[in-house]
């Protein structure tokens, strides 16, 4: 097998493990599994297919991504040839797909037949490269047979040096101005290594990814084990029962979950019929703050290391706390990683005093490579000293522990996924009856927050909740759907006429929605 790239690249480290532990289980997903040798062969075939069908170093492949061995193999195959992926949520509308792929400058497309049907007739002339259909033979696209017929010899190519874009994380299917978060191979490597150190991950770990692969968390949890010779356990679909059964059956030892998943599971954990989670040595909660009563229950119930992390896609993990070690700081999100420094900033950009609330800003070795193709936008999000402004509010105590105190930025986090209110509002404003509207977070036991909408109709016009939901079902992705719709005579505004969204929960209190 030819080795064309330096060993310390994503693919280089993967192939080192292919050589070192060929018969070890590399990946399991939904009843299928592959050893490192088998996965290595598949990755090589995929890479050879991509190269022989015109994918070049630096090209971007658009892909509505599901959780599967094929998706994991594609990440490695793209890494091995220096191509990048723009993974998107398969449920987003055609308009959102178009916006996402244009902003990511996608040239090639890999998707299931349902997606090709969805975009048929839409002019996406920029997708003038490879087209692969993952599940069926269709006109105008290759099939997986074309991948499987390729050689298992690793393609010999110009040197890959790790500076290549590997993943463009689309900011949650924004219809407005998406900001693709660019992560290079080097970004991904640094982040993986930092987490290996932080959570003492070894090649003996069996690492579970149970969130969508089109988000950075699952990408990290799939790439990381393959870089160190551990085993990746990939769940395609989540329910609390499925997750817990998987941990027991696949003897999972480590995972990072989104807090909404833990909230859904905490009750089931108390059941006498709950699956055995004793192989789990460490769980990390992420994406949104755990509710304090859920956190307290988990600290009590979990026998393994229980951690909570705080971070952003741009910065990766910024702080982390192990609740069993820092029992006196359980309301905190922990101390910064060795790779990161934080500052709390006042509105004027100067630093706050200890304990004072301000915007969390972070300088870290794990920083992203920028918003793809948007250098000015990227520069705006940093201070002059190179600290990334997160848009979150927090304070630091005298021991250096960070406390999350809310969000400056307008965002709803539902089931661990960011929803930008502007995206929902833009869709709803296309209804001719709507004068103005505002999307806001509404507390929910299962998902943490759900999308709620306050709508003001034009004089003499009326709308039903269903009509609003029909509009959103067509224009928006699954996680962006409003669960609650409130019709108001007016939106709460301040004396200057500016919308005060934080008054909306009060304005709709007692209403059905």
């Amino acid at each position, binding site marked *: 097998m030819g080795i064309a790239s330096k060993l310390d690249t994503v693919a280089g480290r993967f192939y080192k493990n292919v050589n070192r532990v060929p018969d070890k289980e590399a990946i399991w997903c939904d009843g299928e599994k592959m050893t490192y040798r088998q996965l290595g062969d598949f990755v090589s075939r995929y890479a050879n297919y991509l190269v022989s069908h015109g994918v070049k170093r630096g090209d971007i492949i658009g892909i509505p991504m599901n959780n599967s061995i094929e998706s994991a193999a594609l990440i490695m195959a793209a890494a091995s040839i220096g191509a990048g992926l723009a993974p998107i949520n398969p449920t987003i509308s055609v308009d959102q797909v178009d916006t996402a792929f244009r902003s990511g400058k996608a040239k090639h497309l890999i998707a299931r037949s*349902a997606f090709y049907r969805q975009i048929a007739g839409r002019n996406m002339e920029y997708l003038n490269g490879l087209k692969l259909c993952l599940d069926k033979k269709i006109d105008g696209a290759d099939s997986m047979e074309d991948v499987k017929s390729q050689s298992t010899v690793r393609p010999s190519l110009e040197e890959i040096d790790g500076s290549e874009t590997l993943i463009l994380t689309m900011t949650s299917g924004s219809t407005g101005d998406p900001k693709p978060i660019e992560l290079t191979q080097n970004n991904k490597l640094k982040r993986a290594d930092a987490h290996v150190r932080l959570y003492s991950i070894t090649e003996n770990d069996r690492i579970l990814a149970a969130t969508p692969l089109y988000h950075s968390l699952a990408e990290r949890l799939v790439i990381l084990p393959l870089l160190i010779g551990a085993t990746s356990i990939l769940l395609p679909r989540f329910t609390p029962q499925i997750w817990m059964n998987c941990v027991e059956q696949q003897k999972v030892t480590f995972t990072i979950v989104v807090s909404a998943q833990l909230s859904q599971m905490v009750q089931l954990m108390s059941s006498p019929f709950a699956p055995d989670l004793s192989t789990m040595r460490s769980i990390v909660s992420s994406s949104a703050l755990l509710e304090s009563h859920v956190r307290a229950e988990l600290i009590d119930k979990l026998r393994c290391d229980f951690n909570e992390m705080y971070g952003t896609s741009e910065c990766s993990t910024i702080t982390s706390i192990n609740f069993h070690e820092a029992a006196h700081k359980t309301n905190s999100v922990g101390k910064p990683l060795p790779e990161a420094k934080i500052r709390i900033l006042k509105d004027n950009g100067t630093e706050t005093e200890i304990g004072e609330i301000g915007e969390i800003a972070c300088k870290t070795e794990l920083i992203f490579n920028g918003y793809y193709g948007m250098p000015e936008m990227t520069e705006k999000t940093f201070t002059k000293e190179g600290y990334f402004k997160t848009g979150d509010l927090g304070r630091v105590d005298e021991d250096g522990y960070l406390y999350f105190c809310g969000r400056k930025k307008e965002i709803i986090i539902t089931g661990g996924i960011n929803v930008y209110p502007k995206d929902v509002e833009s869709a709803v404003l296309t209804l001719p009856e709507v004068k103005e509207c505002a999307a806001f977070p509404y507390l929910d036991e299962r998902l943490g927050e759900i999308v709620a909408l306050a709508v003001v109709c034009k004089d003499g016009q009326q709308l039903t909740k269903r009509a609003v939901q*029909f509009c959103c079902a067509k224009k928006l992705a699954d996680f962006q759907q409003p669960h609650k719709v409130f019709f108001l005579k007016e939106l709460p505004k301040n004396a200057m006429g500016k919308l005060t969204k934080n008054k909306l929960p009060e304005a709709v209190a007692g209403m059905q929605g």
Partner: protein
Amino acid sequence: MVKNFILNYIQREYALSENIDLDTFNYIKTGYVDSIGLVQFIVTLEEEFNVEITDEELADERYQILGEMIKLIESKASAK
């Protein structure tokens, strides 16, 4: 038509196995439609077939079975 529409919708991300039994397959418990995706699933069916699914029907675990949901939509659509 209802059956094909629902089957295509459910399989946007993941294929169902070929020998699936529609009369026992629970699309919620198997995660094919989750808490995040439920609103869009129901609203899409309502809009496509011009029907309304009541809160009681949504809460009824019977309609988490794929075959039952297909029958429900078929009977509502044909009653129009």
